[in-house]
Structures are given as structure tokens and as C-alpha cells.
């Protein structure tokens, strides 16, 4: 995917095979890095002029409305297209049983997702697209389209099929890991815990529904899509359509949220592309909200058995985290529930396993912090339970089990401030106000409790590139197929370029989200800023060298600030050094260094909740997140990322629950009225505190991922606070009032 890079001296490529202790972001004097500057694209967003996928106007465009199967499992025998072709405005009904994709693709894959839709594997699977001259006509015909099926029995109920679970094969994460003898340790330990936590399926529910506009120019496709990873998405799309990958261009300038649901291509993209090719006209296909729920991707439900063996001093001797998840037939992705259990706490005997139940329920895939977001519910709530069993402070228990080196591989941590996060957070939040006895603080009808959780998220680096050009007028352009899904990429990439080149942010034009620009990792897994940001760094590093050469000074004595180059007691405008323009390409690749160190970001979550003693309603009163994630590139946008993650934690703990009818596999609550994401009134003032950190092992900008750390541990902090408030230990998420009622005091 990276052969578009241009060769020669204009490319500065770095493979992270070794630490990178020096960073130009520390020696830069522009003074813009890390500062809380406003988003550079902000005025476009607040004025409604940022262009999202469905908002491009193309001549002769056709409206496409997708049609989903109305059975949970079976075969499409026929689709009676003629029955709707005479309806007003209908142009065509496009069916392609072989090429339509059965489900979305996972993020970063370079192959097509499972294709073929004649066999229906889940309710809502997209089987046709109806095309008309207006949205209203297309929708009416789509609703009227007769489809004939042969139904088959399906596997819809997780509980019924849980015993048929199969071990997960290693993919990006290990399916099975065993170390030492957990059973023996459990048998011998003075203190043990064995609890099972359950989390339901969830939906990313990004505000912008999946949308694509497809247009062909001869044999080349341009797709305006809402996609997080255009570089790999274009490959997926090309493979799905059977065209060379250089014939597919994806443009995703603005993306109305993704949270994992737009990592890989979704069914509307292929349907729009096929329809457009057939009609010879641009086709717009926007998923209805119900279709986003039915037929894109969910986070798997999980069942997590957590067992601990500990000494009376709280030191863990065994950690077992054994999970069940679910997915469609033939899909190998599994929710990596135990991902952070590998490295969060010590304990010489370990068992971290994943088994998958095959269900006829839509695809499960990545949603914000796959693994940790729900896996930490099991792990961190179990830690709270163990602390209580031991009669120990939950923070103290975590601190005594904070290892010096990775507990599984014999490698050091690249940087790790877990205990410090817990300590500082405890002081800031007023942890000492916590009553050890649950249910002992009451204000009127409200029982008040405080909870804590560690935060941890694996850090990743993905191959990425970016081009930086300095123009003759001294302004610059940064271009990359990186995306900004609300994460702040536009802004932090401009800040990195500004800091190193000494060109004010206002003079830097950003071009992101177009696969015609140098390939990049895109937004996912919290790797975006570090990966694409490092690519910008490297391009700028090369430009610094070229500017030094143009000025005939040693690069080490070159200072760039406010458009001026200074060195050897000389000063020149950058615009005077670049001639017809100067450009360079930066490229970062992961290397050996990620094996030599365990890389992750850390933190601590604190939550105070009120549980209504009459009704069991839970309301979060305040939360604090303390985070250490390497260099913070923009204090404002980083904080916002954390606020967002913490709020996802509120949803995970209290409200979000995708419910499939166990008889039919149909998603029951497939809209935003009944799938409850937190609203403004659910979210109190949240506080975010960053610890100062640089991670020289991660990348040249010394930053680690921040987009997901805020959710990792947020939910268990709330769950633990609910227990502290009312003494009811709920092990099945979300904690809706019905699960607390029986344990509440009499009215």
C-alpha cells in the first residue's frame, strides 16, 4: 500500500528499530507544540461548511437506498425488481449477489471482506440497492421491494450456544496465553476470587451514518466516503470490485465520527460503486440510522471469567481472564478482551484466553478501544472485589501489583506511570473521602459512592507517510491520506510542522483524507497522531536539512521561527530559501523497538455516582481521568478526546445495550431513541489531568495514543462507585435500575 512514496533524497524514512531520544519538538522554538490552540478546521465545522461524505454535489447524481434482508438466516431466492421499477422516479434496482459484501471489513485489512449476499447470515444484511431520481422515491421503492427467502434456523441466542465456543486463533492479539500453573496457584493461595462479568453488544453510533458517493471515470472509481482508514479502505474496495488498487480513490475529508465503525469499508460503499458502474452516473448511498445499527458493525458481547490468587498482602500470584465473545460465521476477528491483562498487573501464573461463539448476529469488530474498553470492566471490577475481600484499599492493591517489567515477556516498559496516576488522582479527587463501607453515605434519596480504576491502552505505531511542501511565499502544505475523525489530526499535524519549520500554523494548509496523497495509517487504535504525526515530523526534518543546505549552515545551528531561518549569525526569510518550492516526504515504520519494550499509555479513572435509593437510577456526579500518554501534542484536543472516552465509559457502564431478539436475531433497539448513548444531562463536569511524559521508544515525537485511553477503565470506575454507593455488585452491564432494585433499602 505504500509504493506511492516517491524515491530519492526527498524521502526521510525511519523504522523504529531503536529509541529516538532527541526530538525536534523539544528543540523547536515556534512554541506551538502542545499548546491548546483551537482546531484549525473549527470555523468550517461551526459554520456548516465542512463537507462530509454525502454532501458533495455531482452532476446527474442518483439517489440510492439500500435494502436489508428481513430474515436472520436463510437464502434469498428472488428479488422482484420489476415490481418496483415502475414506481415514480425509480431508475433501477441493482443486485449483485456475488459482489455485494456480506458485512463490513475490519480495520487495516487489505483484502475484501466476506462477499456474497444470496446466503443471508444476519438480519438486515444488505442485499440490494434501489436507485431513483430523489431520495423520497428511492426510499419508497426500497421499502416496497419484494424479496423471497427460504428461511433457515439460525444461531441467535448467545446463552444457548455458549458451550459451542471455539478457541480464537492468534491475530493481532493472542487468542490463548498460558504461563505457570493457575490452578495450582489458586489452590494454594490464601485469598482467591472467581467472578464472571458480562458486557452486551454495543454500537459505535457515530453521529454521521455511513455514506458513500461513487463516481467512475472510465475504469477509475472515486468514492467520497466516511472512512477512517482510506489507504487500506481503498484496497479493500478495489479487491471487492475486482479492479486494480490504483484505480480506486477514496476521499474522506470530514468524517462525522467513527469510533471503529468506519475502519473498514461498509456495505454501502460497494453497493454504490456497483450501481454507479452499472448506471454510468454518480450514485449516493447513505445508510439509514436503523441500517447502521442492523448492518455495519457492533462491539461483541463478552462473558469474562476473572480469577485471582493473592497473598494476604495483596500480591497476585495468579491472574486468569478467560473470555467468550461472538461473531458471524467464518469471521476470525474477536474482541481482544484480555489485551491489557497481559501487562497491567504482576502475577507469575497467568491464563488469558478467548473463545468465540458463532452467531447469526451482525459482524463484531473494533469499537473504541477494542479489548480494553470492555475487558477492563471484568479486570478492574474484579480488582475492586479482591480489594474488598482483602480488606485493602483498592488503590493500594493496584500499586502493590504494579510490575517493574512486563510480567510475561522479559522486557521493560517504554514508559509507565500507573501508580503515579493513581496517587495524584486520589489527591485531586479526594479519595480519602471515600467510605469503606458501601451504602454509608446518603444525601436525601441519593446514595453516594466513589470508585477507581486503572487506565491502560496498548500503544501502536503504523506505517504512515506525509508530504510537506514549503511554497515560495513561505507558506506550507501538509498532505497525507491520514484522516481527522474529530481526533484533532488536522490541528496537531499542523502544529508539528509549524514547530519544526518555524512557520506559523495559520500559514499551513492541511490536506487530509484523500488517497491521492501519501498513504497513511488513518484513524484507529489511537495510533493516528503518533504515526501520521511522525511522518510529518520526518518530512519536516528533511526540509530543515534542505533549508540548512540552502542557507549553507550546519543543520544543528539552524533555528526556524516565524518564517525566518537563523544560523551562523545570519537571518533569512524561509521564502527566500525555497526557490520554486521545496518538498519532502516523511515515512515512519514500526520496527524492532516495539518488541524490545512493552508500550502502552496509562492512567487512572475516578468516579463519583449517586444511586437513587428509591428507583435505582444511577447518575454520575463527577469524574476525573489522570493520563500519561507521552507528549501531549495539543492540550485542548487531547483533553476533548479523553472527555469523549470517559463519556463512552458512562454509556458502557450505565446505558448502552444492543439487544437482539433471541428468536429471530433481529436487533430490537435499532435507533437512537432506544439505544441509549449518553445525552448532555448524563454527563457532569469531567476533569482531565495529564502527567508530563515523553516516550522515546514510541516514535520521534515521543507521543503515545490518547483517543482511547479515556474509555479504558472509565466504565469500571463507575461500576465500582455504584457498589460503593449502594452495596450492590452488578456484574452484568449496563447497570440499569432494574439490576439494582432488589438490593436497595426498603422505601
Amino acid at each position, binding site marked *: 500500500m505504500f509504493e506511492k512514496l516517491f524515491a530519492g533524497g526527498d524521502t526521510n524514512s525511519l523504522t523504529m528499530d531503536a529509541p529516538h531520544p532527541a526530538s525536534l519538538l523539544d528543540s523547536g522554538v515556534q512554541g506551538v507544540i502542545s499548546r491548546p490552540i483551537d482546531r484549525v478546521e473549527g470555523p468550517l465545522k461551526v459554520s456548516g461548511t465542512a463537507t462530509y461524505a454525502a454532501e458533495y454535489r455531482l452532476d446527474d447524481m442518483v439517489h440510492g437506498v439500500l435494502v436489508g434482508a428481513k430474515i436472520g438466516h436463510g437464502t434469498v431466492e428472488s428479488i422482484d425488481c420489476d415490481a418496483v421499477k415502475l414506481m415514480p422516479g425509480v431508475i433501477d434496482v441493482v443486485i449483485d449477489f456475488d459482489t455485494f459484501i456480506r458485512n463490513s471489513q475490519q480495520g487495516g485489512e487489505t483484502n475484501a471482506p466476506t462477499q456474497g449476499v444470496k446466503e443471508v447470515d444476519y438480519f438486515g444484511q444488505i442485499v440490494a440497492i434501489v436507485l431513483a431520481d430523489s431520495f423520497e422515491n428511492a426510499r419508497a421503492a426500497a*421499502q416496497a421491494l419484494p424479496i423471497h427467502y427460504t428461511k433457515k434456523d439460525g444461531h441467535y441466542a448467545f446463552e444457548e450456544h455458549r458451550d459451542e465456543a471455539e478457541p480464537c486463533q492468534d491475530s493481532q492479539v493472542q487468542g490463548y496465553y498460558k504461563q505457570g500453573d493457575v490452578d495450582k496457584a489458586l489452590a494454594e493461595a490464601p485469598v482467591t476470587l472467581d467472578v464472571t462479568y458480562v458486557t452486551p453488544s454495543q454500537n459505535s453510533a457515530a453521529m454521521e451514518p455511513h455514506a458513500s458517493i461513487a463516481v467512475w471515470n472510465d475504469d477509475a472509481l472515486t468514492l467520497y466516503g466516511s472512512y477512517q482508514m482510506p489507504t487500506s479502505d481503498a484496497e479493500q474496495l478495489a479487491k471487492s470490485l475486482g479492479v486494480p488498487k490504483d484505480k480506486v480513490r477514496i476521499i474522506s475529508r470530514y468524517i462525522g465520527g467513527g469510533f471503529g465503525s468506519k475502519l473498514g469499508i461498509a456495505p454501502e460503499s460497494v453497493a454504490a460503486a456497483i450501481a454507479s458502474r452499472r448506471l454510468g452516473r454518480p450514485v449516493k448511498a447513505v445508510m439509514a440510522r436503523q441500517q447502521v445499527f442492523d448492518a455495519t458493525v457492533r462491539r461483541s458481547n463478552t462473558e469474562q471469567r476473572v480469577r485471582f490468587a493473592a497473598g494476604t498482602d495483596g500480591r497476585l500470584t495468579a491472574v486468569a481472564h478467560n473470555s467468550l465473545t461472538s461473531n458471524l460465521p467464518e469471521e476470525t476477528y474477536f474482541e481482544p478482551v484480555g489485551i491489557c491483562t497481559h501487562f497491567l498487573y504482576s502475577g507469575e501464573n497467568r491464563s488469558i484466553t478467548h473463545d468465540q461463539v458463532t452467531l447469526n448476529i451482525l459482524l463484531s469488530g473494533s469499537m473504541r478501544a477494542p479489548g480494553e474498553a470492555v475487558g477492563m470492566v471484568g479486570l478492574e471490577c474484579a480488582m475492586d472485589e479482591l480489594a474488598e475481600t482483602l480488606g485493602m484499599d483498592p488503590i493500594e492493591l493496584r500499586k502493590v501489583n504494579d510490575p517493574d517489567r512486563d510480567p510475561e515477556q522479559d522486557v521493560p516498559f517504554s514508559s509507565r506511570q500507573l501508580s503515579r496516576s493513581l496517587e495524584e488522582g486520589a489527591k485531586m479527587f479526594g479519595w480519602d473521602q471515600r467510605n469503606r463501607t458501601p451504602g454509608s453515605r446518603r444525601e436525601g434519596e441519593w446514595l453516594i459512592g466513589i470508585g477507581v480504576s486503572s487506565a491502560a491502552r496498548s500503544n501502536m505505531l503504523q506505517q504512515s507517510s506525509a508530504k510537506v511542501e514549503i511554497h515560495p511565499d513561505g507558506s506550507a502544505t501538509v498532505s497525507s491520506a491520514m484522516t481527522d475523525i474529530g481526533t484533532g489530526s488536522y490541528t496537531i499535524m499542523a502544529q508539528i510542522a509549524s514547530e519544526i519549520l518555524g512557520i506559523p500554523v495559520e500559514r499551513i494548509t492541511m490536506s487530509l483524507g484523500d488517497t491521492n496523497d501519501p498513504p497513511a495509517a488513518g484513524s484507529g487504535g489511537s495510533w493516528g497522531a503518533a504515526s501520521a504525526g511522525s511522518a510529518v515530523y520526518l518530512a519536516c526534518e528533511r526540509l530543515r536539512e534542505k533549508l540548512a543546505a540552502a542557507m549553507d549552515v550546519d543543520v544543528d545551528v539552524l533555528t526556524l521561527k516565524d518564517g525566518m531561518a537563523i544560523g551562523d549569525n545570519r537571518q533569512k526569510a524561509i521564502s527566500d530559501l525555497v526557490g520554486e518550492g521545496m518538498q519532502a516526504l516523511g515515512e515512519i515504520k514500526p520496527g524492532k523497538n516495539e518488541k524490545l519494550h512493552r508500550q502502552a499509555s496509562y492512567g487512572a479513572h475516578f468516579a463519583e455516582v449517586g444511586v437513587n435509593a428509591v428507583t435505582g437510577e444511577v*447518575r454520575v456526579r463527577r469524574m476525573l481521568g489522570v493520563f500519561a500518554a507521552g507528549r501531549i501534542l495539543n492540550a485542548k484536543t487531547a483533553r476533548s478526546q479523553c472527555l469523549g472516552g470517559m463519556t463512552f465509559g458512562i454509556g458502557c457502564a450505565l446505558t448502552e445495550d444492543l439487544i437482539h*431478539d433471541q428468536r429471530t436475531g433481529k436487533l430490537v433497539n435499532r435507533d437512537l431513541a432506544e439505544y441509549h448513548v449518553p445525552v448532555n*444531562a448524563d454527563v457532569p463536569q469531567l476533569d482531565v489531568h495529564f502527567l508530563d511524559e515523553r516516550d522515546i521508544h514510541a516514535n520521534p515525537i515521543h507521543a503515545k495514543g490518547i483517543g482511547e485511553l479515556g474509555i479504558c477503565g472509565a466504565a469500571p470506575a463507575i461500576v465500582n462507585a455504584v457498589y460503593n454507593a449502594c452495596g450492590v455488585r452488578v456484574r452484568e452491564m449496563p447497570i440499569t*435500575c432494574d439490576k439494582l*432494585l432488589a438490593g436497595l433499602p426498603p*422505601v
Partner: protein
Amino acid sequence: MKTFQYARADSAETAVQEAIAQGAKFIAGGTNLLDLMKLQVETPEKLVDITRLPLGEIEQREDGGLTIGALVPNSDLAADRRVIDGYEVLSRALLAGASGQLRNKATTAGNLLQRTRCYYFYDTASPCNKREPGSGCGAIGGFNRILAVLGTSESCIASHPSDMAVAMRALDATIVTLKSDGDRRRIAIGDFYRLPGNTPHIETALEPGELITAIELPAPVEGAKHLYRKVRDRASYAFALVSVAGVVKMDGDTIASAALAFGGLGTMPWRDAGVEAALVGQPATTATFEAAADALLADARGYGSNDFKIPLARRTLIASLRDLTGR
């Protein structure tokens, strides 16, 4: 959405004439009707736009009561000083419902006619006796967390979603209508809603083409305390799991009068004379409140995922009565 004929009415009389047509429906706020039309749960052949009718005023009557025009938006009704002063339970119920945007659009009459949020009613691929008589009920034996535990039948357990209508029941509202033959009639809210029985598609006493023109409230109960308590899954913008609308007047330690209605529990905005009988003339004690809860829930039946509503209703009612009686 199926296409339809659109007609704008300029008087109530022409509106009901327009609505004689087969498959005609009135549209005002449209917040529920269009929601359902987009899913083809509702498929009217004609929409009669009544938003220009002069039915948007709230008037004080000589008997001390209030006449609320059918088109008064929910937000205006909630903020009206006369409503706040005499019928606080109504303001509170309105403000507990939906969102600011929806309350600006939704009308008083339309709110009364809101249709259930039952998942299976909303999904045209599911059986639903309310949407398609005779097709069966997906909710019984399915997921029914938000559905009714009172007034259900073998055909239907759909709950009524309105908050406002619950307050209207507690306030003994009367619904004033105009029929297509020009007759006007007044329907007590207690007679307005229908239990599902084996005809769950018939939800109210309205005849085809009959237009609600106003809602009348009797004079306020002097010296009564008002309460609307709503239990829900989110802090805002969510339908009631259980709600209690109460208007209670005390005479010393004794409950002099009580009007209580319930949301989230019933197949219609629920009121039970037995609850009030258990309260009136009794001392405001926990035993009295428990007797009222017993009366309310004697015939309650859970369907699995909504079983919790029964203990939740009991607790919520007892706590509400404590507030209402100052105990």
C-alpha cells in the same frame, strides 16, 4: 414513506371535511406521525395540514378551568403561567418528555395521540396486532423491557409513551372534538383511551375524521400538592419506565383528596380508582401508601424483561406519596 395527497385546511370545518377521505390523517406537529410514516408503520393516503387552524390559544374559563387549544405546542403549554400556577403536574410532565426541539413542534392534541414505542410495532418485519391486526404480537415472548404490565391482553402489551397524557388523566381532562358531520362532543379522558383487548389497533374513542379541537381542564384543586416523577434510563430524552402524576390535598394528617395517574405501566395512561380509594380519608402513613400500591399492582403482570416495573412502580409510588403528603 408512501406518497400521499397533501391538503392544507383553513378552518376546523374544512379540515374534517377533507378528512372524510379514505386513509386521511390530520397532521400538525408531525413529530410522531412522520417518524412512523418514514418506516411505513403509518401509511396515510392523505394528510390534512391543520397547523393554520386557530386552535393555538389557552383560555381561562369562567368556571376557573382552562381550555387548551389542540395546537398549543407542548413547550408553550408547559411554560404558561396559568398552567404552572394551577396545574403544575402538567408542566412537569411536559418538561419531562422528549427534548426542547420536539416540545416546540409537538402539539397538545398530538401528544395525546402518540403511539406506542413498542419495538415490534416500529419494525414492519415483526408481527404486531396493533400495526397489522391479526398478525400476532412480537413483544409477548420477546424483549419487552419498556412495555406494559397493566391493561395488557393476549393481543398486545404495548405501553402508552406520553408523559403529558398521564398528567391529563390525573387532572380529569376533557377532550373536545369536532366530527365530520359537524357535531361537537366532549369526551372525558377516562373514556378516551381504549384497552387493547383483541382490537389493539383501536386506541381511542375518536371516530374516523374526528378532530380534537381543545382539551379542557377543570378548575384547579385549591391547596393541592402536585408531582410528576419519571423514572428513566437516561437523565433526559428517554421514555418513562415508570412515571407517577399526582395531585394530593391534605387535611391535617389525613389525605383529603388524591388523583394519581401512571405512565410506563399501562397500555394507556393509567388511573385506578382503587388507588385513590385506598388513600382518601386515610392517614398519610407507609401502611396507607403500601395499600395504594397494592391496589395499583394487584392485577399487574410482567412479561419477562419488564417484570421489574412492578417493584419499581411500587417503590416509586410510595416515595411519590411521601412527597405529595409531606411525610
